[in-house]
Every structure is written in structure tokens, then in C-alpha cells.
């Protein structure tokens, strides 16, 4: 066994000296890559056409150059470590014209208009780069031509007269920005993941747990046929944690953390991350011992992260993806729905005490970094501050380069692309109340309102599960940390197995009070489409009191507990 251990150490030592890829972090932008992209684009525009068929009128190339480190930690030990360099290319070819092209249409076979993607060499070889671009451009063009034909037939056979343009007219600019990261320090992070995941050795109630690190040092290269180009950093440091335990009646209790930062310097020290894991373990252990929730209808106080996810899943998701897509297959339509609030310009979408602004140009808030910060969106348009809501009324929309009925140009919010079409997604969302009260006062108000309902307790929620944990028909994922608050004494008691019932977007208008603290919630926002890339985002928001929410017991079924105890905690069997 010693022999193998030595071999493994040698390998990890050598791994720093892998292929000689171009590394934008240290060498600056790759001129070779940019030149290859521009040259193939120029040739395509000049020569690429199929006989009498429509020629390309717009082209965009996006390349993700990534150095990634993925580590999975389990109970103090590492699983499947991976460190690798890669370059992925996305090619978008449009046929037709700005007024009517092959986008925003999904045909009867479910063929979508997502871009074509492939792999590029990590080494800078002009000829090979162009050869890959050429092959993918050819493929993308052919499918665009077919799609344009289908879309034209669809329009004619359905007699559609009201047709929106498919590409807005936006300013053209170029920019170059690179960001160094310093050395990856793989050994340090491997040990950190062992230490953080090892925290669960002190929690015998936890049956399974994991701590995963995903560190992507990334630069994005973009060139389009209207003259835009950029090189920009897209670093991503993510820690995911998970812990699960089982209540006496067999119901599994679990909670997760998905923590995201946009730069290595923003990542807290390992001790702070361990503390986060410990908190997760304590919460899950407490849930396993807690009583079950009983049906509740009454005021609910959402504190901290719970308010953050509430605003994310109802408000942010409601404002995403404002452009309609024509979908031929009925069963596909559910995957392309526009954000539910995007049709409500001029109408009330949230309680009148709120102004809502999205501003990706802000890099931090009161000293705390905002992960939703960016200067140029994925389509090469400068990020803009958008006054979305004034006194509860929707005044503006998040826009990508897909025009809508009411807004015709981009405001630099085109995101979530790569494997899916880019669409409008939040950057940094500021939910700002114009009247506030202290959190203590809000708790008192919760008790008063509950008492007025004739209840013996109100409900305070501190954690709601992340957006991607929603089931298909849920608007809001389940609450994880739910506390009943005694109306007389204010004492809190944790409850388990709750889900929301009958939640609609109305809940945003049911907010009756907001706290004077502003929380910063940095999150990994899943894209509107199933295959969308996740976007870094931030929501700056208060805690809020809702006049009325309904909670019921989950319909999830219990599981059989394990027959034997976890070996680490089985003191009887230890030899």
C-alpha cells in the first residue's frame, strides 16, 4: 500500500505542470484566439451561403477559457479530485434579418434555438482554432437555415400578424479586462475541504454529508459581427454543503448551502467556512428532533436568507426572460415561459413600500462584495442601472438583446447563455423599503398579528431552500428552518416537514413591514431555461413580514432508518 501512496503523491505534485495552455490570467488576452475568431467570422460573412438560401446576417463567437479545480469532501476525506484546463466555444449564427430571424422559435420536434457548442484546444494554434470555429459555424448555419424555414411556415400557417423583432439595435463597443488569481494552491484547498467536511464527525445524528468545492478561474472571449468584442473575467468560487439526518418517524431532514464568490480574495478564511458547516450540521440535527408542523394560516416573518430566497424566487424570477418564444409543441411550452411579472408594466407587483433597482455596475454594498457585479453582459452590451419598481409599481424591465412589446433595446442584462440562449436575468437586485422598523419591532408585530388571527403562535422562517430545489409546480421552494413564536412569551420552537401551500405572486403584495437591516444575499441563480448556465447574482434586501401565508405538512413519505449504526459512531462495535 505504501507503493501506491507514493505514486499518488507524485502525481499530484506533477499536476501543476500539465499542458502549456494559454493562461489569460498570467499572460493577458490571447491575440491568437481573438484573431482566429475575427478571421473566421469575416470569412463566414463574406462567403458562407447555401445556394439560394438565406445567408447569415449575424454571428457571435463566445469562448470560455477555464482552469478548474473540483474537490468533493466527505466526512474528512476527498473524493474524485479534478484539476483541468479547458476551452469551450459557443457559436451563434442567425439567418434572416433583425426584424425576423430564426430565434425565439421552438419547432415541433422540440428543436430549440440554443447555440452550438464545442471544444477548442487549450493551446494557441491559429489553424486549429480556425478549423474548429469553421466546423461549428457550418453546423450552426445549416440548422439556422432550417429553423428559419420552419418559423416562417409557422407564422404563415398560424396567420400571425403581430411579430416582434428578434434582435435589437444596441451600441457597439470593445473592451478588454483580465483578472489574475494567483496560484491555485491545490494542496491548501484539498486540506481545507477535508477539514470542513470533517466537521460532521462531531455530529452523530448526521447520516450523510458532503462539502464540494468548485473553483473556476475563467476568462470569456467574445466577438460578434456588428463589431463588438470583449475579454472579461468570469471567476467563480463555489462551495456546496449538504447534510441529512432522520427523525424518529423516519422522515429525512436535510439542508444545503450554496455559497458563491466572484474572486478568491472574497472567500472567507477556512475557519469561517467550517463554522458554516457546523451551523448546517446543528440545524439538521435540531430538525431531526423537532416536532412536525401543523397546518398554519397567518402572519409570517421571513428573516435573512428566507427573505432573500423569497425575493429571488418570486420577484427576480418573475422579472426574468421577458421575451415570448413561439413554441410549436405544447409540451415544450412550459420550458420557455416568460417571467410572470414581465407583463405588468404600470401595475403593482409588490407592496407599495418598495423601490426595486437592478444595478450590475455596483461592485459592493457597504463593504460587502456583490457577486452579481459585471460591467459588460454576455452579449457585449454595457450593464445599466434599471429602475424596475417605484413604490410597488413596475416601471421598467430587465432586457437582453431580445426586443419585447414595450422595450426595444437591451439594458445590458443578457445572461445565462452558453448551452442555452442568453436572456434577461438580474445582476444586483436592490429591494429597498421606504419605511422600515427594527427587527425586534417586527417580531412584536408578528405576535400581535397572530393574536389578532386568534392563533397561539406566529411563524418565523429563517431559511428557505434554494431555487433549484423547487419541484415543477412550486413557485416557492420549501421552508427549511421554521419556528413557531409564542404570541405571549415570544419563545421560539423549531418545527419540521413544512411546505408552503397556495403561494402565488400575490405574496409580494402581502408584505406589510420591512426591517431596517439590509442583508446581502449572494447567490448562484439558475437560468430561466432548463439548460441555462447559472449566473452569479446578488439580492440586497430587508427581512419582511407578510400578513398571511399558508404552511402545511409535506406529503413526502418517511424512509426506513438504517439497520446498523454508522460505523464511526458505533461505539459498541469499535475494536
Amino acid at each position, binding site marked *: 500500500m505504501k507503493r501506491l501512496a507514493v505514486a499518488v503523491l507524485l502525481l499530484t505534485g506533477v499536476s501543476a505542470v500539465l*499542458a502549456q495552455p494559454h493562461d489569460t490570467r498570467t499572460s493577458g488576452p490571447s491575440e491568437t484566439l481573438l484573431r482566429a475568431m475575427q478571421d473566421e467570422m469575416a470569412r463566414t460573412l463574406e462567403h458562407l451561403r447555401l445556394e439560394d438560401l438565406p445567408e447569415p446576417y449575424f454571428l457571435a463567437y463566445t469562448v470560455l477559457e477555464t482552469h478548474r479545480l473540483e474537490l468533493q469532501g*466527505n466526512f474528512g476525506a*476527498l473524493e474524485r479530485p479534478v484539476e483541468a484546463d479547458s476551452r469551450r466555444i459557443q457559436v451563434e449564427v442567425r439567418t434572416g434579418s433583425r426584424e425576423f430571424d430564426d430565434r425565439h422559435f421552438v419547432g415541433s420536434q422540440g428543436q430549440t434555438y440554443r447555440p452550438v457548442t464545442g471544444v477548442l484546444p487549450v493551446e494557441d494554434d491559429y489553424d486549429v482554432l480556425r*478549423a474548429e470555429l469553421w466546423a461549428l459555424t457550418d453546423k450552426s448555419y445549416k440548422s439556422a437555415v432550417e429553423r428559419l424555414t420552419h418559423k416562417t411556415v409557422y407564422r404563415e400557417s398560424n396567420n400571425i400578424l403581430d411579430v416582434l423583432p428578434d434582435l435589437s439595435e444596441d451600441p457597439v463597443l470593445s473592451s478588454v479586462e483580465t483578472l489574475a488569481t494567483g496560484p491555485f494552491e491545490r494542496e491548501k484547498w484539498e486540506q481545507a475541504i477535508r477539514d470542513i467536511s470533517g466537521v460532521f464527525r462531531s455530529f452523530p445524528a448526521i447520516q450523510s454529508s458532503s462539502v464540494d468545492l468548485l473553483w473556476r478561474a475563467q476568462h470569456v472571449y467574445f466577438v460578434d459581427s456588428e463589431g463588438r468584442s470583449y475579454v472579461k473575467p468570469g471567476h467563480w468560487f463555489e462551495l456546496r454543503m449538504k447534510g441529512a439526518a432522520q427523525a424518529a418517524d423516519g422522515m429525512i431532514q436535510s439542508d444545503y448551502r450554496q455559497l458563491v464568490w466572484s474572486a478568491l480574495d472574497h472567500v472567507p478564511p477556512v475557519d469561517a467556512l467550517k463554522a458554516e458547516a457546523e451551523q448546517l450540521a446543528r440545524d439538521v440535527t435540531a430538525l431531526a428532533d423537532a416536532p412536525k408542523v401543523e397546518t398554519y394560516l397567518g402572519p409570517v416573518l421571513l428573516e435573512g436568507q428566507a427573505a432573500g430566497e423569497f425575493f429571488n424566487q418570486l420577484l427576480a424570477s418573475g422579472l426574468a426572460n421577458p421575451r415570448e418564444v413561439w413554441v410549436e409543441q405544447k409540451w415544450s411550452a412550459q420550458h420557455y415561459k416568460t417571467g410572470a411579472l414581465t407583463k405588468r408594466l404600470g401595475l403593482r407587483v409588490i407592496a407599495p413600500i418598495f423601490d426595486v433597482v437592478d444595478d450590475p455596475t455596483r461592485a459592493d454594498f457597504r463593504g460587502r462584495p456583490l457577486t452579481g457585479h459585471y460591467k459588460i453582459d454576455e452579449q457585449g452590451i454595457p450593464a445599466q442601472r434599471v429602475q424596475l419598481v417605484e413604490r410597488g409599481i413596475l416601471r421598467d424591465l430587465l432586457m437582453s438583446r431580445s426586443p419585447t412589446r414595450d422595450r426595444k433595446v437591451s439594458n445590458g442584462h443578457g445572461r445565462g447563455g452558453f448551452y442555452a440562449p442568453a436572456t434577461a436575468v438580474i445582476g444586483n437586485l436592490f429591494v429597498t423599503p421606504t419605511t422600515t422598523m427594527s427587527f425586534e419591532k417586527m417580531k412584536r408585530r408578528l405576535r400581535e398579528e397572530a393574536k389578532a388571527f386568534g392563533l397561539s403562535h406566529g411563524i418565523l422562517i429563517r431559511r428557505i431552500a434554494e431555487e433549484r430545489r423547487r419541484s415543477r409546480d412550486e413557485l416557492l421552494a420549501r421552508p427549511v428552518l421554521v419556528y413557531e413564536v409564542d404570541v405571549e412569551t415570544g419563545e421560539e420552537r423549531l418545527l419540521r416537514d413544512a411546505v408552503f401551500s397556495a403561494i402565488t405572486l400575490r405574496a409580494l403584495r402581502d408584505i406589510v413591514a420591512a426591517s431596517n437591516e439590509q442583508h446581502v444575499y449572494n447567490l448562484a441563480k439558475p437560468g430561466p431555461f432548463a439548460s441555462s448556465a447559472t449566473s452569479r447574482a446578488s439580492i440586497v434586501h430587508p427581512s419582511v413580514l407578510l400578513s398571511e401565508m399558508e404552511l402545511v405538512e409535506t406529503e413526502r413519505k418517511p424512509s426506513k432508518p*438504517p439497520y446498523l449504526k454508522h460505523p464511526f459512531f458505533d461505539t459498541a462495535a469499535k475494536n
Partner: protein
Amino acid sequence: MTMIRRIFSFATVVSLLLASSWLLAAEDASQDVLLRALDAELERSFEGLKQVEGPPLYYLGYEARDKQSYTLNAKLGAIVYETERHDRSLDVDVRVGSRQLDNTHQLKGRTGRFEFPKMSYTELTVDDDEAALRGDIWKRTDEAYKDAVSRYTTVETNKAVTATEEDTSADFSTEEASTFYEQVPFPTIDRAAWRERMRRISGAMKRYAFVYGSQTNLSLETENRYIVNSEGSRIVTGNTFIRLTFGVQSQTEDGMGLHRGRYYDADRPEDLPAVETVLEDVATAAGELEALLNAPLVDPYTGPAIFRHRATGVFFHEILGHRLEGHRQKLEREGQTFTKMVGQKVVADFISVYDDPTRHRLGDQFLRGFYRFDDEGIPARRVTLIKDGVLESFLMSRSPIANFEHSNGHGRRSSGRFVVARMGNTIVEASGTVEYARLREMLIEEIVRQGKPYGLIFDDISGGFTSTGRGGTQSYKVIPHLVYRVYPDGRPDEVVRGVDIVGTPLTSFSKILAAADDYDVFNGSCGAESGWVPVSAVAPSILVSEIEIEKRAKSSDKPPILPTPHHAPKGGGR
């Protein structure tokens, strides 16, 4: 015969090696943390779960895999990516009930993977951390046990409500336990030197304007398997698989995708070919691709043909190999083509077929189907499937069939699947062979005798697939990549394209006329209900009196519109 003598002496060397390495490695075994963790958790789980109410637990087995791999991929002179991985995974096999009827019994009325027990594997830590390892082993064991108990109930019901099976063999054989310890180290290579070689090889494809796609890939993989079970087996055994491949693709105007390439398989880096050899092969492949681009489309045809050695190997793998997998002989939904034919002549009497996973090489060529212990911990054995044309035996896992009660070391799987009998190194031997030149002459004679305009030579195939189920057509398909028309009037051989070979097994078998002595190896991967396993097929070229071909299905993709950029005229257009 030279072949038999070579096998015998090799077997002696192998057993000596096995014995000595076992003695030397006893100390290593006790320091092996993964082995210790598996052992400790197996004992605790087996003792603990045996006491649970319900159908009795009578067997518990673990198979852990420790896999290290390295991949280097290049294209047209540049490195595309380079990665290395270290993974560990665990499969848990649980049996409740009794040897005669347990939870793994076939569920009638289901198909494919669903008639076998649902399996899944779990990841294990790559650290030598006993606490973390035991935690994961415990969890998967608990889940596998629960699955076994619930399936056992379904098995009992299924048996009660369906017709009595024809083959009433037990579900699990009695076998002896084994102990063995050999860790195979991951080979080291000069990565900088290999990057240069890969750039050169892939760069050589640049000069061909008709090559629209190409790949060049080097992969090294070492997998050490740990098999620990409640019968007392304690085995650590490993394999290294190294594969260098390249491929070049093009497309005809009528939408047919064409591909030529080569695979080089080895278990030692020094056995990989020199760059110059590969460069020659690249030039040959490009030449073949160009010939195919200009080749006429073939029409459906029946007539005499030669299968070159590697093509013969695939042919036997598909027609015969899968149909001799033991479990198929008792599964009610299987076609059971050969089940009742033991002792009968099934092929020409100058043909014998063996499956021998203990065989490491043919001459210098590594055989991918080599292994010492199968995935149930049974020592690999050379099995005589067909002797002088007569069917003798089947490939067996620990699932007994009528008249064959024991495993012969062919129980295999990939992670996450239930073990079934699979091939290893399938070796076709012929007696009374002729030189290949003579075989060609015999082909011409047969063409003339049958009054056909031409015959065919199948030079290279990419493998195929076969359907063995009762509901299906019992046919097979082998997909040739390089086919030549041979004319009896002395014209040069002519490449043709768009060919698929079809047929039914028993008919094709009866039509083998002669064999040459030019043995060669087809190394590949075989996929079936228990997943993908590495295999090889060794065979000589054969002459078949009648083979049927049909047109291959093709896509309608047009070739690329513009020339490859590095071949475009200055100014870029067509």
C-alpha cells in the same frame, strides 16, 4: 501445434507469477487501508444484518475499484486538453433467501436491465481514511440490503403468478474462496515527450483538405479491483489499459459520413508504436478515406466473401460470443439459440473457439480481455466453447444453468451493474489453414463456381450489435468500414462504400469454407446488460461461401460549405 504449446508454457509462467506475488504481498495487504475498511465493514454488516427479521441474508460481497487515469487529446497539431483523475467506487452485492431462490432471480415479463436486480454504485474517498471509507461502505450496504429484501418479495410473487421455468437451476453456485494480492501501479510516462508526439501525429492530418474532422487521443488507465465477500474471498487484482487512437472523417456529397482510424492497445507504455509507425498509418488511413470518398455505393448483394482476421473476430463475437453467455441459456425471454445444442456440431469441424482471459498477449500484442479474477472473485479460466466444430460449453458466472453448475470465471460487469457472464479474450482457432494468398485464390474460385460477378473482402469493422431476445429477429449486424470488391478477371480490387452485413447466426455459421493462418487481434469494449467490459477477439481470415449485405442507413448531412480554413484559397472563399 505452435499455438497450443505457447499457451501451455505461458500458463505455467502465469501461475508461478501469481504464487510468488501472493507470497510477497502479504505484508502490503495488511497495510492496505481500503482493504482493511472493506474487511471490517463486511464483517460488521454481515453479522449485523443476518440478525434482521425477514428473508435470511446468506451472502454479502463488495467490489471496490480504484481507478487512476490520464488522457491527452490533440487535434491538427495542438493539444486540446490534458486531464488526470483518481476515482474510487464501490458495488455491493447482497443475496437474501437461499442459494436455490434468492432476490436476484429473473423477474419474468420485464426486459433488459429491469429483469436484473437494480444496482447502483457509490463513490468512495481516494484518501486512505478508514473512517470515511467505512461510512460510505456502510451506507451503500444498508441501501443494497433494503433493495434486496424488497426485490425478494417481488421475486416470490412473480414466481407464484407466472408459469414454471424450464431451467430450474439454483440462483447462486457454490465456489471456493480465493486470496490474492497484487496492486498494479499506474505507469509513468514522459508527458512533455508525449505532447510533442501527439502534436506531430495530429498535425499530420492537416495536409488533407478532404479531412473535415479528426481526433488523436492517448489514454492510460489503471484499475485495481478489491473483492471481499462473506465466503472469505480477499482479492486485490489490477489491470492497466493504454490506448492510443486516431481518426479522420469526411463526408460525401450524398451525405454519407466516412471514418478511418487506428487503435493501438497496450498495457505498458513502451509497447506503444513509434511515432513514425503511427505517421505511416495516418497516411494510409487518409489514403483509404480518399478512396472511400470516391468509391461507388454498393448495392444489396449475396455472395462469397473473405473476412480479414479482425473482422472475423468481431463476426464471432457477435454471432457466437453473446449467445454462449451462460445466463441467457436459462432466461425465459432469451432466444436460446445454442442452449440445447451441447454435443452437436454448430460450425465447420476445422474451427474451435475458446475464451481465455488468462491470456495476456498474442505475440507482442496486448489483449484487452486479460484478467486474473472476474468480478465475483472467481479465478479466470480458459474455456473451450467449441472444439472441432462441436459445442462444448458456455461462459459462466456464478449463476448456474442446466448441466453447468459452476462458474468458469467469466462473471463481469462495469460499476453499477449486476454481474452476468461475459466474454474475455475470444479466440478462434482453425486447423488445416492455408496462407492468405491461397485463401484469396479460393475466393476467386468460389466466385466463379457460383457464377457471381464479384466477391467481397471485409477488411475492417467497427464492431456491431446483436439481438438475442425471443421477441426479436435473432439477427446480428456487423458494420464494415473498409470493403473491397474482388473480380475474378484479375482487375484490381475496388473499394466500395455504404455496406452493412446482415444475417442470422446459424445460417452464416454453416457457410465457413476455409481459414488462413494470419491471426490478428481486435481489441475493444463490449456492452451488454452488465455494462461495458474490455474484450478482445483473436481470429484468422476466413472464407465464407455466402454473406448478405444491405445498404447502410446514412444521415442527410451535407459536407461543410466552405473549405477548411487552412486549405482555403487566399481571400477565404470556395
